[in-house]
């Protein structure tokens, strides 16, 4: 519903911040489980055998850049720049897709090397943690693509800047989570 709110922040934006708070507990639990189970593997393959840090560094960089694209998309829609809005929304979604492609490659490579989901403690905690993150990225890509289509139809003008901003909040959050995962899973392997 429209109209002024008690805090001056719109309902939708407050809801997204609230949801992100709840998501912190979700990822916090998954990350805590992964960290507790680090080094407790009884059978291989072990993380150090398989994790490809250079490759994931590249996809991490791509995901970080997608956050930059997101900022540019928001800036464009706030300025009423229809062309820029479409371009940067598409780029954000594309970079998200590239990241997901990298994850798909990584997962299938691991499975090929004998690390299926049910192989050992590492595979269980690794796939569920990074898979949950990947599902969040995929949800974000669908959301951004929808916004892109709306922009194509000319239905995403300056008055909808907040819609883009809220999608951006979500996207940046998912990105920040990945920075934590990249550090804890890959850099600390």
């Amino acid at each position: 519903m429209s109209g002024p709110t008690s805090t001056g922040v719109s309902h939708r934006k407050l809801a997204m911040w609230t949801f992100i708070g709840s998501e912190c507990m979700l990822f916090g639990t998954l990350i805590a489980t992964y960290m507790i189970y680090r080094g407790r593997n009884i059978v291989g393959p072990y993380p150090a055998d398989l994790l490809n840090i250079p490759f994931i560094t590249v996809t991490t960089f791509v995901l970080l850049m997608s956050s930059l694209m997101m900022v540019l998309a928001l800036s464009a829609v706030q300025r009423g720049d229809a062309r820029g809005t479409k371009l940067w929304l598409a780029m954000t979604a594309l970079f998200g897709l590239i990241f997901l492609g990298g994850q798909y490659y990584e997962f299938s490579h691991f499975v090929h090397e004998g690390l299926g989901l049910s192989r050992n403690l590492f595979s269980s905690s690794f796939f569920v943690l990074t898979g949950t993150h990947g599902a969040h990225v995929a949800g974000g890509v669908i959301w951004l693509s929808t916004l892109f289509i709306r922009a194509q139809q000319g239905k995403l003008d300056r008055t909808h800047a907040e819609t883009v901003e809220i999608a951006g909040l979500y996207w940046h959050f998912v990105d920040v989570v990945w920075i934590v995962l990249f550090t804890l899973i890959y850099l600390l392997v």
Partner: protein
Amino acid sequence: MSANGSHESLYAGGIWSWLTTVDHKRIGILYFVTGFVFLLVAGIEGQLIRTQLAQPGLRILDPELYNQLFTMHGTTMVFLAGMPLITAFFNYIVPLQIGARDVAFPRLNAFSFWVLLFGGLFLYASFFFGGAPDGGWFAYTPLTNAEYSPGRGMDFYILALLLAGVGSIAGGVNFLVTIVNMRAPGMTFMRLPLFTWMALIVSILILLAFPPFTVGLVFMLFDRTFGTHFYDAAAGADPVLWQHLFWVFGHPEVYILILPAFGVVSDVIPAFSKKALFGYPVVVFSGILIAFLGFGVWVHHMFSVGLGPIVNAVFGGATMLIAIPTGIKIFNWIATLWGGQLRYTAAMLFAVGLVATFTIGGLSGVMHASPPADLQQTDTYFVVAHFHYVLIGGTVFGLFSGFYYWFPKATGRLLSERLGAAHFWLTFIALNVTFFPMHFSGLLGMPRRTFTYAEGLGLDLFNLISTIGAFIFTLAFLPLIANLWRTWRRGEEAGPNPWDAHTLEWTMSSPPPHYNFAVTPRVDRRDPLWHPHVEPGLGWAGEVEPGGVSPRLQPDDPPEPIVMPDPSFWPLFMSIGLLIATIGGLGSLPVTLVGAAWALVGLFGWAFEPSEGGH
């Protein structure tokens, strides 16, 4: 729409209007009916358990069915009776108390209800597909893994609670945003009615406590379905990880269940004492403190696991700390009663009953906060006595207090106070007769979750008394049902404020018009109705009714058109998709994908539906 006409129009309309409703009052009624039906079902399950335990060595139920019944009793009471009944009151009362016309996200609100209902029905479908879950409401591993619980039961448990949990988190977001963002002008945080305050705190608890539970359930589902090793000690896993995840949710969960009851009592006692709540800020902050400490005490459910003396001592100490804010609340309620003009209505009886019986349950809670004492008491009927005193003597009494208090607001009719008093006294007697003897049978060592006991252990009499008490519980529902029947047939008109109570929900007609407030009120104190004043231009409108003690401060008709959200089919549509996906979780990936696609279609339909219509 006139106030007289609103009596019919608020709840009138065919089944379609209920399936598509986004009105917080109607959704509140849906939650209440759902929660009440599940309360009765779980009550019958409890009754069966007590019947089996009436005498040593009975075989009224076989052990397998007994395990299913205590699991379903606990799971239903917590997730399908307690939480929906609490959410019913949040829905109906919170917008009225803060001066809002609905919740922040009316369609999300409907969605929360539908997934809860589907989760509950799905859980109960397990009885027809190979047996209900039987691993206890806390589903400890490895008992609940694929090897020791090979049936479908635990899968139903996991999937049903995942589905209902989605609704709980959505509801948490919704009520937090509603309370923070939709307060009427002048309704500062320190003027919020206590019930709304507790709703805010509980929303935060839900948002922070449910995700660890969700993750724990997903681990369990993956262990059972895909052979992962999260709870598999043989693969190097921590054998008590599930216990940690469950109780880091489970302990805040019991505050999710009790704080709303504290909120009800903190509104009811002042209303029937004709006195402002004693120490309002202290009551608010002790509620916040209880919630905060509630995240740091979960290990007291695990003292017997053997985490070591340091861990146990720290968690024991933290647990004892909770007695301080709880005690503060109890003394504030007593101080509010002190010197007040007391009226012992049914609502007041249940509220004062809570102060007494919750204190008994709280005291036994402090006893097993001490690890050495707990090692004697854990998994015995002493613990059963403790948590039934706090959950019935606390949560259920608080909910019944709220039921008698707000029933006239929601229906426009007065309940019989005599039948209400009969209901209270029977419930009060039943509680004490059933659960007080369990302190003794528990200290004598009678284990929980065991379908029978041997003769000659000194347990026979205590168990017989407990079973008699359980039958009194059933009896206690008769005056309630008679009361509802009587009021349905010939209930007196309630009028806007039958109790001469003090908060905003009593300013408009009963039941309220679907837009709630014809004029958005302006608030300048905590108990606006005890200081009626009409200030044109400030938003208050209406007049003191001739001859009545209760001023109505809302006009019959809104002075200007009000835009209210249109009904929507999409919340139900999307919930059906999630239900299909959940059913697929039993072992059919294609069904899950169909359900997910269905839900996604629902999400798009929802997102692109014009969300506002005319009045």
